[in-house]
């Protein structure tokens, strides 16, 4: 079998924060009413984490659940398990109004690491990234300059950001520019 390759083949950049493109990750869009126990059980069953509340993202290593809207979840699993996870959720959701789609290869994932990580994102996104407003476990869907992105805090000073694979190079360039040494603002 051929090896999956991520959009930018794990490119990295060392600025006043480190920017890393992560390798392939299994990502499944699950549409369905979060209030339904079938939807909850299908999602937690493959992700192995507790069901997230509004704008929460729970990730443990490569598995996790992110709250995307009142009827949309992002389910994360290791890349090779995505198809199996879709099949498992579809069987749990048989007869329930829902949709599960493997979108792994339509996405790129970045990590922004370092004490200036909040600042790098704040330069690009119309989001309050102050430590009071944005804490580990929070997810935000927004835009980075001109393209849609979503990001969450894995832990203090570490963000993961996802975007469409087709704009991975654009987003990497944005992150690089925002992280160029000497461009620190020191706001947070």
């Amino acid at each position: 079998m051929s090896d999956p390759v991520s959009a930018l083949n794990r490119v990295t950049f060392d600025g006043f924060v480190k920017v890393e493109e992560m390798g392939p990750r299994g990502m499944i869009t699950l549409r369905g009413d979060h209030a339904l126990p079938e939807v909850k059980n299908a999602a937690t069953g493959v992700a192995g984490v507790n069901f997230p509340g509004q704008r929460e993202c729970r990730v443990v290593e490569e598995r996790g659940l992110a709250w995307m809207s009142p009827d949309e979840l992002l389910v994360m699993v290791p890349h090779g398990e995505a198809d199996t996870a879709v099949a498992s959720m579809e069987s749990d959701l048989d007869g329930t109004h829902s949709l599960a789609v493997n979108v792994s290869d339509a996405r790129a994932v970045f990590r922004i690491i370092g004490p200036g990580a909040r600042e790098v994102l704040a330069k690009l996104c119309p989001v309050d990234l102050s430590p009071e407003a944005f804490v580990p476990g929070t997810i935000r869907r927004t835009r980075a300059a001109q393209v849609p992105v979503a990001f969450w805090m894995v832990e203090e000073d570490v963000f993961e950001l996802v975007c469409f694979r087709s704009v991975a190079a654009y987003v990497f360039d944005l992150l690089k520019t925002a992280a160029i040494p000497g461009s620190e603002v020191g706001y947070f």
Partner: protein
Amino acid sequence: MLILTCPYCGVSGEETEFHAGGEAHLKRFGPGSSDADFESYLFHRENPKGVHFERWRHVSGCGKWFHAARCTTTLEVFGTYTAQTSEPPQSIKDAITAKRPGWTWRDFA
């Protein structure tokens, strides 16, 4: 710059994260309606100086459509509310009345 709060995901964001969707609470007139009603549905829009109701979409966020009540002169947002309604909820009307007593907009007051 408008600051809008999406009633679906709870995010308060500035307007570039959203997309304006035109006037709210239009009643659709389709096949079989009179020419006058169809023309009005297609073309006749309010253009108030003051209280206004609009549709917005949280386009770079959760993707949902919602409604917003705001002032076109001050950009003050009186409130946002669900898309699943054909008229503003009483709480929104009350919030407007508190700031703009005697307001009217189409058939609402």
